């Protein structure tokens, strides 16, 4: 029998018992909806988790610290079989850059500074934490939707600020409920492409000949008043050449930066401490030679020169993290990465999805019994009709296929209905939850995710289950003895 004849016959059979078949189809729909709802919740949570943590630059990053720090002396140094503790300096940085899997190495730069707009009084300056951003941060989630542009280059005298800090600079009150609120266009226009002045503490090497002072000396601020980014670079060169001298001074510097972008959340939050409201391009930030907490240890431990508090080693592929981490550990450093934790979580999510899927499928299993029931009923009702069809030349296969098409149609229809229903349930729950979250002063999140494969998979699974449920009724109908079925009643 031709396919369109089969579909036509099956279709008219379905229409003949429209109420019963509709109810059965609805049952399948509810089953599929529960499956889709459960799975999309699991997938949504997983996606939310990945989005929040995965794109923060944490998963492909290794945080390297020296074991000579206080933390290192307590636990890591007791480990045996590893190289002796090493200083985390430029030599170390270069050696990490040589590891093939490594994409970039940058310092976990974090310093304090204060900002004011050129016209405003210096007393109105806003004190904040300044951080550096490596070029790869451009792919960070924070830059998905932000005002302005990304840095023009990694050594440009530019700054990207957080929206909340922008409000502070403009003298506006902070957003009371949610700090991640964008600036209005007018507000942003007052900042973007305008200059801002950063005042910071610069580490400046002393002459090798000079006697190391016991404490860093703050030089006269008047000296630094006219400094530009060029002077900053000059200081950097000076610092490099004199780095072997263990002594340095801390001086006040001022630089003029151009505000290029305003973000609502901190890109590459990583392991920076405190809220970093101003972000500079990494190379430029390094060239400023800002005084950092690690510099204090340089005073305590003379002879080490310039050291880093922490280096961030970013690998190209997150699957290499463990290998690179081991290599760095062997060289004698402390490492930390959250890839292990994330792997465990990913596994947990697979289990969660599986669990939710099994629960969701239960309803579909019940619904499939409905199909068996409906079709078996149909056989009893259509006994004579099946007999007639056989007498007119229908083969067992024809009869079987008609029943299969009926089961499959109910599955396809119920599946489509179920996916739509599941999606709607998801929307409603998401809306409700977000409404609640907003009331609780939390940022609304989309933890409901229905990917295309779930839509197609949901319908396909429904058809598959329905065909499976149709196996028994179809073969029973096919085996029906036409002589018995046509016997006079």
């Amino acid at each position: 029998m031709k396919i369109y004849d089969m579909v036509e016959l099956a279709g008219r059979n379905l229409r003949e018992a429209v109420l019963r078949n509709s109810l059965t189809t609805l049952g399948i729909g509810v089953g599929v909806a529960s499956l889709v709802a459960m799975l999309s919740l699991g997938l949504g949570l997983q996606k939310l988790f990945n989005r929040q943590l995965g794109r923060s630059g944490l998963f492909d990053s290794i945080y390297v610290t020296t074991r000579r720090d206080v933390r290192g002396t307590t636990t890591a140094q007791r480990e045996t079989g590893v190289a002796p503790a090493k200083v985390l300096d430029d030599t170390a940085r270069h050696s990490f850059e040589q590891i093939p899997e490594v994409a970039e190495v940058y310092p976990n730069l974090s310093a304090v500074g204060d900002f004011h707009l050129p016209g405003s009084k210096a007393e109105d300056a806003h004190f904040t934490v300044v951080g550096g951003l490596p070029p790869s941060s451009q792919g960070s989630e924070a830059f998905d939707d932000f005002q302005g542009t990304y840095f023009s280059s990694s050594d440009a005298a530019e700054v990207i600020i957080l929206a909340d800090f922008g409000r502070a600079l403009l003298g506006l009150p902070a957003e009371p409920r949610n700090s991640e609120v964008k600036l209005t266009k007018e507000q942003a226009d007052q900042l973007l492409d305008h200059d801002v002045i950063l005042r910071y503490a610069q580490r400046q090497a002393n002459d090798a000949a000079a006697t190391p002072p016991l404490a860093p000396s703050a030089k006269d601020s008047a000296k630094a008043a006219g400094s530009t980014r060029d002077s900053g670079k000059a200081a950097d060169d000076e610092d490099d050449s004199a780095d072997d001298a263990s002594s340095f001074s801390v001086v006040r510097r001022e630089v003029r930066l151009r505000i290029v972008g305003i973000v609502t959340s901190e890109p590459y939050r990583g392991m920076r401490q405190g809220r970093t409201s101003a972000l500079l391009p990494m190379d430029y930030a390094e060239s400023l030679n800002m005084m950092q907490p690690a510099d204090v240890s340089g005073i305590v431990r003379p002879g080490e020169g310039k050291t880093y508090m922490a280096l961030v080693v970013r690998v190209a592929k997150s699957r290499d993290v463990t290998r690179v981490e081991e290599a760095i550990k062997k060289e004698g450093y402390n490492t930390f990465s959250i890839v292990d934790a994330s792997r465990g979580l990913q596994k947990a999510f697979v289990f969660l999805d599986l669990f939710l899927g099994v629960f969701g499928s239960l309803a579909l299993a019940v619904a499939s019994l409905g199909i068996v029931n409906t079709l078996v009923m149909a056989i009893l009702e259509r006994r004579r009709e099946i007999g007639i069809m056989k007498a007119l030349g229908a083969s067992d296969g024809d009869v079987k296929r008609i029943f299969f098409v009926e089961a499959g149609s109910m599955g396809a229809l119920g599946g489509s209905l179920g996916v739509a229903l599941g999606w709607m349930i998801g929307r409603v729950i998401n809306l409700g939850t977000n409404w609640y979250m907003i009331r609780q002063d939390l940022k609304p999140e989309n933890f409901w995710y229905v990917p295309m494969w779930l839509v197609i998979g949901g319908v396909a699974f429904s058809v598959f289950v329905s065909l499976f449920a149709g196996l028994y009724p179809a073969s029973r109908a096919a085996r029906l003895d036409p002589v018995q079925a046509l016997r006079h009643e």
Partner: protein
Amino acid sequence: MFDIGVKKPPASEPDGHVPIKLHDSEALRVVSLVRHYRMGKNTIPAVDGVSMAANRGEFIALLGTSGSGKSTLLNLIAGLDRPQSGAIVVDGHDLATMTPEQLAQYRRHTVGMVFQSFNLVPTMTLYENVELPMRFAEVRRRERRSRVTEALERVGLGDRVKHRPSELSGGEQQRAALARALVNEPKILLADEPTGNLDSKTGTEIMGLITDLNKSLDMTVIMVTHERALADRYADRMIFLGDGKVLGETKNSAKGARL
């Protein structure tokens, strides 16, 4: 049309099938046919060693009381049932050795059936009922339309195509069933008490139609009936059955004498 190779009978069949050749004039031949039914512990020999033949274009009446095995024999010839032993040879092929799919093909193309209770599909219109066998025979849609119309017009129901069986009288239903039986142009028409549910006037109409098909299309007709009068009037030959056996047969030279 109907084209399948003769299969060797399975070894389990007791009396090995010798290939049976039909005479040129023969449409079908039944040889030592046996069909037993099991009813609980008892075995009922519904057809018990029947042999018979039908010539092309011949009108045969199978006569007998109820339980004589005439309907079982008809179902066996129709390919709806399978014999325990014996052969049913049509077009050089033995139905007993065919696969279920081949039997379905045989029912599609070689035989047409009408029943005492009409057996139209109640949910389908006359058009759809008559079209049904052509769906199984995979006749092209365009051709179906003309064949359905032609068949329904032939039985005088050309203006009732959209009616459902329940909207028709018994005689009309049986005519529709006849249209359905002949739409695939079978060589053999099998009729199981075709007038059993009809009054004598409409019964006569139906028999007239069957006789017309028998003559004009040269269709072999095998009709099961328990009415001797009906057989006398229309059949070329009468075969009498009792307890699953052929009791005798007579040529009906007086056919149509009382028409």
